[in-house]
């Protein structure tokens, strides 16, 4: 049976267990003189029976479905003659797909090695059997455990407490998904990164100034090694992020100042949501705007000034990214400016300073740490932003500070290296994970620092 169908069957069983459990608890209560003589309400007995029925069966189903393929592959490859046993995981998957093709009849069995044909037969066999075993095992466990759960319903049993404990564990495991995600990121990204550094040296990666991750098809090809120096990518990322911040910080900050200190309620209620609209526009839309409108405009404009601009200039990507992060800067600054106590404002105004002097000399210094935190968050946004640069920045890894030239970024390279076919044993694919690890570390550091600053500052005035 297909796992999906099996799943629905288990759901039906769970429902049956619920109904039967409900009626059993009612039946047990009747001779005692009603439901109030039970330790818990009938619904809790019913839920308990349903949980008994569902939890073990579903756990086994999930485990079986996720590890079935690996175990079958291991068994199939284990039967092969020792001389054709694959040495690397890449070869193993190649051989496996060959066996798969024989099993499905796409490859005629006459043209290949006899042991492969045997393996294909074994594969077909295992697959069918595995499915039967899984169905039988899961269903019998569901029925058996459901029966035990149903049978053990007693008037003195505190079903509510048991159900609540299980629910609590469920809540906890949901909260733990956050930890699992972080662990998953760390393991998946860093595991591949370690493998990458097994092929490319540390110094080449961190201090190399040339990036061309092409790996040769033949060993004797010119430049077969590929170059994995991340400096040009890092400077490209920094250049574009710097342009973005140059746009976003003044615009965002002054908007926040105007909205919090000068604008009346009416203007505020119109302008604020409009600014937030900028944050809600998908990044692919900004990328489209940058690549097809802003970049050609800048190239033409530079030409009329007699300058030479690339059609994929860093300036275009940076400007549009700046527009995208205006709302981050403005809403965070707005929050911290509003958090500055009114007494500071009143004191300054009472001494005769103008509103702008109050802003510049009193509120701004008081709000500065919070604003810095907001800017750091915006910077981490800019560094990790992908679609705008994928669409509007180039692929050539130029080491330049000229915003009219084309540069490439860390995120662009991750996407280009991983779109299409991947081989998890070539440095080309693994390089993307190494870049991802760097990106993760840098943005994490920025976020941690920013959150610390913001929090510390908030406590000061609370």
């Amino acid at each position, binding site marked *: 049976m297909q796992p999906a169908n099996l799943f629905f069957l288990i759901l039906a069983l769970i429902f049956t267990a619920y109904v039967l459990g409900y009626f059993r608890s009612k039946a047990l209560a009747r001779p005692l003189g009603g439901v109030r003589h039970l330790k818990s309400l009938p619904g809790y007995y019913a839920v308990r029976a349903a949980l008994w029925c569902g939890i073990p069966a579903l756990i086994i189903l999930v485990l079986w479905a996720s590890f079935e393929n690996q175990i079958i592959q291991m068994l199939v490859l284990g039967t092969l003659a020792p001389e054709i046993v694959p040495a690397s995981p890449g070869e193993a998957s190649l051989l496996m797909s060959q066996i798969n093709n024989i099993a499905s009849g796409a490859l005629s069995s006459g043209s290949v090695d006899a042991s492969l044909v045997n393996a294909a037969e074994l594969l077909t066999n295992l697959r069918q059997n595995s499915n039967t075993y899984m169905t039988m095992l899961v269903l019998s466990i569901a029925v058996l455990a459901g029966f035990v759960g149903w049978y053990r319903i007693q008037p003195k049993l505190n079903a509510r407490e048991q159900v609540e404990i299980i629910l609590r564990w469920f809540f906890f495991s949901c909260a733990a998904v956050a930890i699992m995600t972080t662990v998953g990121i760390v393991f998946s990204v860093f595991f591949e990164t370690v493998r990458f550094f097994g092929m490319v040296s540390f110094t080449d990666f961190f201090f190399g100034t040339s990036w061309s991750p092409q790996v040769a098809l033949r060993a004797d090809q010119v430049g077969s090694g590929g170059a994995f120096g991340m400096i040009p990518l890092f400077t490209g990322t920094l250049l574009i992020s710097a342009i973005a911040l140059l746009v976003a910080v003044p615009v965002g900050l002054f908007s926040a100042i105007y909205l919090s200190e000068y604008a009346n309620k009416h203007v505020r209620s119109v302008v604020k949501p409009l600014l937030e609209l900028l944050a809600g526009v998908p990044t692919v*839309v900004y990328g489209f705007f940058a690549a097809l409108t802003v970049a050609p405009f800048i190239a033409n404009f530079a030409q009329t000034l007699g300058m030479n601009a690339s059609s994929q200039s860093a300036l275009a990507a940076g400007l549009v990214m700046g527009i995208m992060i205006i709302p981050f800067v403005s809403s965070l600054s707005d929050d911290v400016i509003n958090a500055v106590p009114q007494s500071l404002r009143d004191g300054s105004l009472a001494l005769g300073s103008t509103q702008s002097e109050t802003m510049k000399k009193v509120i701004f210094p008081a709000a500065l740490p919070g604003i810095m935190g907001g800017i750091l968050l915006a910077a981490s946004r800019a560094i990790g932003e992908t679609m705008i640069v994928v669409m509007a920045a180039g692929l050539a890894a130029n080491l330049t500070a000229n915003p009219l030239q084309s540069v490439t970024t860390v*995120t662009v390279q991750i996407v280009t290296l991983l779109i299409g076919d991947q081989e998890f044993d070539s440095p080309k694919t693994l390089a993307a994970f190494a870049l991802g690890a760097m990106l993760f570390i840098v943005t994490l550091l920025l976020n941690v620092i920013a959150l610390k600053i913001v929090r510390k500052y908030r406590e000061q005035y609370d």
Partner: protein
Amino acid sequence: MIDPKKQAEIVHKSLKKRYRKEKRFRAYGILAITIALASLIVLFADIINKGHTGFLKTTITLDVEMNAETMYLEDPTDPDAVRMADFVEPLIQSLSEILPEATEEDRGKLRGLINPYASSQLRDELVANPDWMGTTQTITFLAHSNVDVYNKHKGNEAYSIKLSEEQQQYVDKLRDKGVIETSFNDVFFTSGDSRDPARAGVLGAIVGSLLVMFVTLVLSFPIGVAAAIYLEEFAPRNRITDFIEVNINNLAAVPSIIFGLLGLAVFINLFGMPRSVPFVGGLVLTLMTLPTIIISSRAAIKSVPPSIREAAEGVGASKMQVVLHHVLPLAMPGMLTGSIIGMAQALGETAPLLLIGMVAFIVEIPEGFFDAATVLPVQVFLWAGSPELAFIERASAAIMVLLAFLLSMNALAIWLRKRLERRW
């Protein structure tokens, strides 16, 4: 001690300058807001300007003579004969009757006006109605995508370069005669991707997006709410809880592409799940939106006043009963609002889906969670990368569809908040 009179004089003198500074400062603020709003307007105007024509299609209506001789077809019910028959010739003959000035040498130019798939449309219709053989039928075909853009952008050089001088004259003449017409582009909403811009549509991408969103919603909403309940109501103040909180806050700020790397390494490489399928896309987006949902759900739970809890506890409810029967229903509107906003973010997300292979060229409309599919933003990305203006136009139109979805989701969230929000 300075003379107070003199002091007042100094202050008075500086006042003018200080007021000027004040005015300037204010002007900077207005300027900043103007820049921000202007870029918003330019962005939207540019997209509407580029894409509104994507909602229009150009059709050619021809009187096609089903002549057995010109089509080399005797019996349209015989599949072999149909395969060998010529379905282009009747179209060109019909066109050259309307355009008598086109000579034998201009046949290629005439052919360039009709959609390359028009002949298969004619074939399918004839096979469906074999009794048409020997008659003349009026059939509407799609125009070639070059004619389409030329027709919709009359007088714009950039859109006409793909047609020759003569072809442009033909199109003008055909339009004057009412043979070429412009109408609402239903093809755009009823078909999947195509190599031919005139036949490319967003339906496949919309269905893909809906499938991905469904998986994301079904997984992230219960998990997010449960996690928020645990953290707000049950979590003991200890290291593990602190660690979970730090984790959630940091995950909310991790670049989305990192989640793509996670999905690629764990779901596809380790668990062997298929590439390009909505199920894996939904899993990745679930992990990405969870922090948003958890954070907003916690805020919603926090806003339920303690008096409710105390009252429930006072009549003997257990902690779990307090939460499930009283706190959760009251916090639900806030949780729903937060989740809709999280889902809107997920709907616009592109980068992680590129890494798990949802960028493939897919013509079929996906039918299940394990069919290869693409999503709206990725479709925009694919079309935007094409050098053909007709595809750029469709990318803009697809952006408008995407923005319409996002706006309606956000409107729904605002409406929910207004409708269900309770002031304590």
